[in-house]
């Protein structure tokens, strides 16, 4: 016990870095990068949860279908789903960023908010 789950530890730290960038940085592109980093942290976490020491990837070799020969296949499927969804979300977020830049000619979210407020008044 204790903090000896190094893979999960790395995943949490990666998630934390991404989340901090997402909240603190004012640049929209860097916010997108932070979001992608939180995604990567989650994939590492899921993959670490599915691993069993000394076993092979879940592809049947020589007709052996014993539970004791392969790692858990379910986290692999979950990570696959996550990767596809993160591609879709980053595409939509980057498209929104492009639109905002074309309209306000800046990527700083505070300046965008200021300009939008002035425009409304």
């Amino acid at each position: 016990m204790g903090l000896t789950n190094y893979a999960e530890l790395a995943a949490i730290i990666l998630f934390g870095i991404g989340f901090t960038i997402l909240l603190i940085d004012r640049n929209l592109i860097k916010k997108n990068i932070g979001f992608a980093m939180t995604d990567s942290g989650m994939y590492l976490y899921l993959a670490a949860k599915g691993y069993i020491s000394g076993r092979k990837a879940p592809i049947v070799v020589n007709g052996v279908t014993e539970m004791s020969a392969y790692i858990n296949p379910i986290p692999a499927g979950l990570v696959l789903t996550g990767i596809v969804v993160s591609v879709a979300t980053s595409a939509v977020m980057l498209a929104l960023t492009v639109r905002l830049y074309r309209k306000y000619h800046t990527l700083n979210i505070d300046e965008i908010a200021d300009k939008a407020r002035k425009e409304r008044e």
Partner: protein
Amino acid sequence: MARVRDDMGDTRWGRLQRWLREGDDSLDRAMIAVWDESAEPEPEPVFTVPPARPEQKKKNQKHTAKLEKLLRVFSVIAAVLLCVGIIGILLHTTALLPSFGREDNPVHNEVPRRYIEKGMNEDTGAVNIVAGMILDYRAFDTLGESNVLFVAVCTVMILLRLQAGDPDERLGSDTRDRLIEPHSDPILQVIARVLIPLILIFGAYVILNGHISPGGGFSGGAIMGAALILHMLAFGEKQTARFFSYRTYRAVSVCALGFYALAKAYSFFTGANHLPSIITIGTPGRIFSAGLIPYLNIAVGLVVCCTMYALFSLFRKGEL
């Protein structure tokens, strides 16, 4: 009490209540006013704010700027505290989790046991257990994923498509880097002529062998999409548009998603439990085996390939 009632009568909720109880038409009038602003002229303001003197205005502005700056500093501090708190809670939880890589961890329960022990020989016929899982046991999940990609391309198209005749948009497209960068670079073209067929063949191999080796529709489709992107970069948009346009994208995506939905719809007619399937699983390890999985892989691969190219094309030139 009476005063409270009077105050409440003027709020939106009070008006709604009156409208429900007595058929008061003030809410209708308010709605009409919202929809059709030109119906009623706006009433003159009862009292006007006296114009502030210049020095007072300046002072006010300075004050607001100071306040905003303070608010921003405060928000940054709050964000840092929040992040540190979340990371601390997650690290504490991680320390309490079962340790890494042990086979008696609670995640390794009867579900992966069923997938591994019965998956290849009885249920799906796929040698790649993950492919059997995502395209047979959990095939509807994968249908949803493919639809997410399709919806993402539609959204990006709505956001980025250039409207013809809009002067602002045209100006934006004229100043793009694609018009400044060098065209028809001979080195890139020669390399691309050799590489593109190889990449396409490798992508097709990964898709078609998805059920007997590592790979599948998502990875193979991404490889084939990379070949299309390389073609566009090497030979220019006009050459690629000869065989891949908006119509191609629409036809291929809709056909592939429709085929997937139809191919999996049969399980509703056999009692929503498609494990005892009418489609035989064949001999595991052969290319024509594993029931519907190779065909579903092809459908997913086509959707992913089109999506990759469509996203790149939309971000680069604003249209397909």
